[in-house]
C-alpha cells in the first residue's frame, strides 16, 4: 500500500478491509466456486455504497474521488480485493464507468451510469484488441471474436473496441443482449473470477452507442489499458502482501527440531528477499497509480513496468510461500491456493508480462520491425 495516504484514503482502505473481512471471508469466496455469477450481488451493491464503483466517475455524473486522484483511491480498494481474494467485477466496471463518464453521450450517461454506480448493473470491458467494423454512412456493423472478457456473461453492457477498414478505431457500449452477440462462458483457474468469449456476427452499432469519437479513441483505449494495469497490479500487491504476512506468522508459530522455523537462517534470508519483493511491488504500483492518476508522460511506461514486475515476481513469491508452509500449503483446505489462482490469472490476463515488456521496448526502441 502507498505509505503516504491522506486521512480520507486511509479511511476508504480501512472501511473496505473491514467490510470484506465481514462480508467476504474466504469461506464465502469458496462457497461461490460453483455459482455461475461468481459474486454475491448483495455484497457488490453494498460495496458500491462504499465507493467501489464511483471513484473514477466525475462528480457531475454522481461519482467522485476521495483524494483528487481517483485512480490512487481505487487502487486502494483493488489492493483490499487482493488481500481478501474477493470476488466481483471491480476492474471492468470501473474502467467502463470512467470511459462512459468521460466520453459517452447523454443517453448512455443517463441510462447506464446510475446502475453501474449503485451496483445494480454490471459492465464488461472487451479490452483494446479490436473487432472489425464495416462502416456505411451512419451504420456501423461489427464482426469478430474477443476470446477472453472478464464478467462478460454476468454483465448488462460491454465496451467493445473496433477498427474499420481505414484503420480508424472506435468504441461502443453495447447491451449484452444485442442481436448477433454470442457470449460463451469459459473455465478458468480462479474459483470466482468469471470470463467469457464474445462473438460478434454483424452487430449493428447506433451512433448513440458510440463512446468517444475517432480522434480520441486511441488515447481513450490507452487510458483504459493503463487503469486496468494499475488496478490489476494493486490487486496482486494486496494478494502477495497478505500471503507474505501469513507466511511470516506461520513460520514464527511453527517449531521444528525444537526451534521456531522462523529461526532458520536459510528461511529468514528467503523471507528477507520476499519482503523486498513485496516492497518493490508496492513501490512500482504506487508510482504507476500516481502517474496514471496525474496522466504524466511516464504513465504508459510505469503502468507496463508495474505489470512486468508484478507479473514476473508475484507467482514465484506465492509459490515459495507455499513451499515454506510445507505440505499443508498444497491442500485444498488451506487458503494459499486461492491466492495462487488469483495472481496466476492476473499474470496472464490484461497482457502477460511479455506483452507489457514489448510495450516498454516499443517505447524505448520504436515498434519491432
Amino acid at each position: 500500500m502507498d505509505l503516504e495516504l491522506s486521512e480520507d484514503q486511509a479511511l476508504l482502505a480501512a472501511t473496505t478491509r473491514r467490510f470484506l473481512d465481514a462480508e467476504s471471508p474466504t469461506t464465502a469466496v469458496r462457497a461461490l466456486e460453483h455459482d455461475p455469477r461468481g459474486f454475491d450481488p448483495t455484497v457488490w451493491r453494498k460495496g458500491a455504497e462504499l465507493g467501489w464503483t464511483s471513484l473514477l466517475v466525475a462528480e457531475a455524473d454522481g461519482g467522485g474521488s476521495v483524494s483528487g486522484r481517483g485512480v490512487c483511491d481505487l487502487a486502494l480498494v483493488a489492493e483490499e480485493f487482493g488481500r481478501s481474494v474477493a470476488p466481483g467485477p471491480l476492474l471492468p466496471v470501473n474502467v467502463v464507468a470512467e470511459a462512459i463518464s468521460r466520453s459517452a453521450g447523454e443517453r448512455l450517461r443517463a441510462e447506464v451510469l446510475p446502475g453501474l454506480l449503485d451496483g445494480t448493473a454490471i459492465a464488461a470491458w472487451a479490452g483494446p484488441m479490436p473487432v472489425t467494423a464495416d462502416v456505411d454512412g451512419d451504420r456501423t456493423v461489427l464482426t469478430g471474436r474477443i476470446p477472453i472478457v472478464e464478467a462478460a456473461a454476468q454483465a448488462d453492457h460491454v465496451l467493445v473496441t473496433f477498427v474499420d477498414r481505414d484503420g480508424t478505431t472506435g468504441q461502443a457500449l453495447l447491451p449484452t443482449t444485442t442481436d448477433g452477440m454470442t457470449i460463451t462462458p469459459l473455465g478458468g483457474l480462479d474459483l470466482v473470477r468469471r470470463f467469457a468469449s464474445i462473438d460478434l456476427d454483424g452487430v449493428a452499432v447506433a451512433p448513440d452507442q458510440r463512446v468517444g469519437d475517432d480522434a480520441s479513441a486511441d488515447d481513450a483505449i490507452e487510458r483504459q489499458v493503463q487503469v486496468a494495469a494499475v488496478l490489476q497490479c494493486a490487486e496482486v500487491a494486496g494478494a502477495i502482501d497478505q500471503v507474505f504476512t501469513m507466511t511470516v506468522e506461520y513460520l514464527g508459530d511453527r517449531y521444528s527440531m525444537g526451534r521456531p522455523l522462523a529461526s532458520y537462517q536459510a528461511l529468514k534470508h528467503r523471507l528477507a528477499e520476499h519482503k523486498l519483493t513485496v516492497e518493490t511491488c508496492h513501490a512500482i504500483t504506487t508510482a504507476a497509480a500516481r502517474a496514471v492518476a496525474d496522466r504524466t508522460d511516464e504513465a504508459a511506461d510505469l503502468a507496463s513496468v508495474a505489470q512486468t514486475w508484478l507479473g514476473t515476481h508475484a507467482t514465484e513469491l506465492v509459490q515459495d510461500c507455499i513451499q515454506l508452509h510445507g505440505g499443508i500449503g498444497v491442500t485444498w483446505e488451506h487458503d494459499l491456493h486461492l491466492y495462487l489462482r488469483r495472481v496466476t490469472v492476473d499474470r496472464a490476463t490484461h497482457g502477460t508480462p511479455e506483452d507489457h515488456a514489448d510495450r516498454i521496448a516499443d517505447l524505448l526502441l520504436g515498434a519491432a520491425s
Partner: protein
Amino acid sequence: MSTDDLEPVEDFRERARVWLAANMPPNIDAYFDRTDERRTVEDQLQRRLWDGGFAGICFPADYGGLGLTPAHQVAFNGEVVPYDMPYSLNVPTLGILAATLVDFGSHEQKARHLPAILRGEERWVQFLSEPSGGSDLAGVRTRADRDGDVFILNGSKIWSSGAYAAQFSMCLARTNWDVPKHRGLTMFLLPIHHPGVTVEQIRQVDGSMEFCQEFFDDVEIPVENVIGEVDDGWTVATRLLVHERMAVGGGSQYTSGRSVGHGGGGGDDNDLIDLLRARGLAGDTDARRLLAESHARRLVARHLVERVTGGLRSGALPAPAGSLMKLFTATNQARRVEIALTLAGPEAVVWPADAEGATEIAAGIGRATLGRQGIALGGGSNEIQRNIISERVLGLPREAAADRDVPYKDVRHGSR
C-alpha cells in the same frame, strides 16, 4: 550364483523385447490416471510380468525376484517405453517399501510379502510424516507402547500417498521417550485394514485426493511386525528415505519403466512445440529459447540421474548424494512449469469448456502450476535435501538443534 553366471544383458534385452511385444498392451499414457479401474488394470499388468518372468528384476531370487543387476533393469527400461506398464506400483510400493523390506525385513516378512508384491497383490505405503511434524521426520510423536507380545499404537500420520488404496504400510512410531529423538523410534509393518486404523483422503489444490491422513486408536501390532530392531527405527527410516530419493529422482534399480511418483505437468517438448506453433511463436526468439531451455533441462536431469546413480553404485559418491537428484528434480520441475506457463499464454488460466489441442495443453499447464510445489515437498522438502547435501555430502557443520541429546519428552514441538 556369481555375477558371471547371470544371463548376459544383451541376451536379456532381446528376450524382453520379444516377450513384451507378444504380451504387453501398447502405452496409453495413463501415467496420471488414479482411478480404481486403472489400479486394477495395473495390478493385472504386474501379474502378467510375474507370469512372464520379468517381475522384480533386481529383487532377490530367494523371494520371487530375478536376482539380476541394475544393468539388466536399465536394459529392460529401454524396451518397455512403447508398452503399458503398472506405473503406479513403481512408487512407492516397489521402489521404496519393497526395497526397504529387502534391506531390513526378517526372512518371514520377506517370504510372505515380497512375492505377493511382485505378483501385483499388495500395494504398500509409508507412514512417516505427522500433522505437527513438518520437515522434522525424526520428530515422531505417534507412540507405540509395549504390552506383552504386542505394541499399542496411538497417534496420526499424514501425507501418505495412496494409502486409501494400499494394504500394507511401514509405520514409524516412538517406543522410547527417555532418549534423544533419533534413538527411541521403531519401524512397524502395519496392515492398513486393521482394527483401530482410519484413513482419510486429503483434497489437494489441483483437486486430486492422492494424499491421506491416518488415525490410530489403540491399534495392536504383534512384536514380530517390527522391521529391523526395536528403538532402531531411524536406521530403517533413513534407508527408506534413500530409496525414496532414488526412486523419485529416477534412479531406482527396483522400478520398471517410467515412475509415476510426482512430476509431470512441466510440458514435454512436443506439447511446447504444439503450443508455439498454435500461438504463432515458432519464429519468436524468446519463445524458441524458452523451449530450448526446457528441452535442455530435461536432458540435464536425465544425465544427472545417470551420473549420480552410477556414482552411488560405484561408490564414487556417498549415499546422501541421492539428494542431488531429488533436489534437482524439484527445482528443475518448477522452472519447467514456469517456462510452460509463459509459453502457454492466457489460455493457461482461462479456457473453453471444450478445450482441445494446444488450448487443452495450455489449460493443463495452468492447472499443473497449482500443485507445482508438491514434488518440492513430498519425499523430503527441498530444504531438507539442501541440509543433507550441505551436511552429509559436503561435510559442513550441522545445524544447531535445540532437541539434540535431550530426552524427547522434553522437546518443544509443533505449533506454539
